[in-house]
């Protein structure tokens, strides 16, 4: 395994970005989901006037504050890395990312300066309804804030609404609405936010289960479980729907990612989806080995997911690498040839412009425009380079799906025993609830691994590979900051867990 790890500078930069994103994503989904649960809890308090609901709301709000405080601004480190480690990339996408990221920054600042402050400090200073309004605004605003980041991410997976300017070496936005309503971005937003609601619901159910196990704060725990289980169950159903939409968009725009998610090497009509399986990690596209060592397949499901038709063809990795005439799939080798022509045309265009040779620059531009859709392929050496790490993508996808199937059963079990008024006696269920806290994060992080590892080698789908996006720095520089981040984030995570555990042990205030 170790000898397979490529320790070049670009891979250290890649690892650093992945590390930062994974740590950042520990905090974000809890903020997104818990903010809505706080709004539900407080709405019940305002409608019933029952002080117990206020106490309950304030308790979960304290945990929300801890998570928010520790996690705030961890995402900015990703932006630091763009400028230092990924200067080619950040220059090339600057025009596209500028608008969504600026909106996100302004949005987040005003939200935090006003409604967050009112939510935390305003309990005795503003009216009940004004306070409730602030809590709802925090929930809605935090989730809308996530929209802009996911629009930027969605654009990388499916670059639309732009044109490449060969004079500035930038993708320039031609249609803001196309970028905003990019179907990949929208499905990413709905899937990501709804899965965050599930994560936060499991967090509330899990901690409430701990109280039931300990026989403390029983009423608060049961009330929290009811609200979180209902919210979690509705959210997890929507995660399924939005996941279906996300898979469809992946099939349309990133067929290689879908093939890797399913370990599918040879395309199939009536393709089945693998429920469980073991990937043959020795398998290389085009060889004669089996792609899967063991597999349990559900017939027709992959065709249905990919194309909304049972009898449709789903291309496999081999079809995408070597081409498939029957289904009109061009080989990666052909696209690499086109890409090389596009790169040569871009260089010729620059040279012609420097020499003030209008005729040559026009000819180069025509050639560039002919082959521009494949420009990213020109940086690859062979068709096999278009294949992402199949095993990582496959396992991450299946872990996410399996856990996503388990979670609704957990919510239903809690609701059932609450309804039967037996939830306090079900110790096994409390343990299941507790175990679901880490599992919720595993599923959530696995989702991002599918999204990001599955789209390798691309930083921008088909247009810019990761290894051309980086800055020409020494490996040592990136290594140093990698370990600094590892230390900093681990420290923050330990601080979060310690403070949160102390607060959970203390429980709600007895006021």
């Amino acid at each position: 395994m170790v000898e397979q790890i490529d320790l070049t500078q670009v891979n250290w930069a890649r690892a650093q970005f992945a590390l930062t994103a994974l740590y950042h994503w520990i905090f974000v989904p809890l903020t997104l989901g818990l903010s809505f649960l706080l709004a539900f809890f407080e709405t019940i308090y305002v409608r019933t006037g029952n002080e117990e609901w206020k106490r309950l709301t304030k308790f979960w709000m304290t945990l929300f504050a801890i998570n928010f405080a520790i996690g705030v601004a961890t995402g900015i480190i990703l932006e630091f890395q763009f400028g230092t480690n990924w200067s080619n990339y950040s220059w090339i996408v600057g025009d596209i990312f500028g608008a969504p990221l600026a909106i996100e920054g302004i949005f987040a600042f005003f939200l935090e300066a006003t409604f967050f402050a009112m939510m935390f400090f305003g309990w005795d200073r503003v009216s009940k309804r004004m306070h409730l309004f602030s809590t709802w605004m925090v929930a809605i605003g935090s989730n809308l804030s996530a929209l802009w980041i996911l629009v930027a991410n969605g654009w990388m997976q499916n670059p639309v609404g732009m044109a490449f300017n060969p004079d500035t070496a930038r993708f320039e936005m031609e249609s803001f609405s196309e970028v905003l309503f990019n179907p990949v971005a929208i499905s990413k937003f709905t899937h990501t936010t709804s899965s965050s609601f599930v994560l936060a619901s499991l967090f509330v159910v899990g901690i409430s289960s701990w109280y039931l196990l300990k026989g403390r704060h029983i009423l608060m725990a049961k009330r929290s479980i009811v609200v979180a289980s209902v919210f979690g169950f509705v959210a997890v159903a929507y995660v399924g729907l939005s996941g279906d939409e996300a898979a469809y968009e992946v099939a349309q725009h990133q067929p290689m990612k879908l093939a890797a998610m399913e370990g599918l090497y040879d395309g199939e009509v009536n393709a089945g989806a693998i429920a469980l399986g073991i990937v043959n990690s020795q398998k290389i596209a085009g060889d004669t080995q089996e792609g899967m060592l063991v597999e349990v397949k559900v017939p027709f499901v992959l065709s249905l997911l990919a194309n909304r038709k049972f009898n449709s063809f789903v291309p496999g990795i081999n079809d995408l690498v070597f081409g498939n005439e029957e289904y009109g799939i061009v080989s990666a080798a052909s696209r690499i040839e086109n890409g090389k022509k596009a790169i040569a045309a871009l260089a010729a265009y620059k040279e012609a412009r420097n020499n003030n040779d209008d005729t040559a620059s026009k000819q180069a531009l025509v050639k560039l425009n002919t082959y521009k859709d494949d420009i990213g392929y020109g940086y690859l050496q062979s068709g096999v380079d278009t294949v992402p790490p199949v095993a990582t993508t496959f396992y991450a996808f299946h872990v996410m799906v399996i856990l996503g199937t388990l979670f609704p059963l957990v919510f239903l079990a809690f609701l059932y025993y609450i309804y039967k008024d037996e939830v306090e006696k079900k110790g096994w269920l409390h343990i299941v609830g507790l175990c679901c806290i880490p599992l919720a994060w595993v599923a959530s992080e696995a989702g991002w691994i599918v999204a990001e590892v599955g789209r390798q080698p691309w930083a921008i789908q088909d247009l810019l590979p990761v290894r051309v996006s980086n800055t020409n720095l020494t490996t040592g520089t990136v290594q140093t900051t990698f370990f600094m981040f590892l230390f900093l984030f681990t420290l923050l995570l330990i601080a979060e867990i310690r403070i949160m555990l102390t607060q959970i042990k203390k429980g709600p205030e007895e006021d």
Partner: protein
Amino acid sequence: MFYSVYTFYRDGFRRMTVGKRLWLIIAIKLFVMFAVLKTFYFPNYLNTQFETDAERASYVIDQITEGHIQKN
């Protein structure tokens, strides 16, 4: 009005219990991130190496073309 906004925040901070420790963590974290990491380890490469956007564009085009044409 400004005074009431000021007292709102002032009293809010004063009444915090767990929040004081959190603000300390936020302050240390932001200091480390912006005063140390950003300043010493994460300069914007293109901004520090070049003065104009034209120079930056030219450099990036060279980066994404030169070495790759030779491999054709």
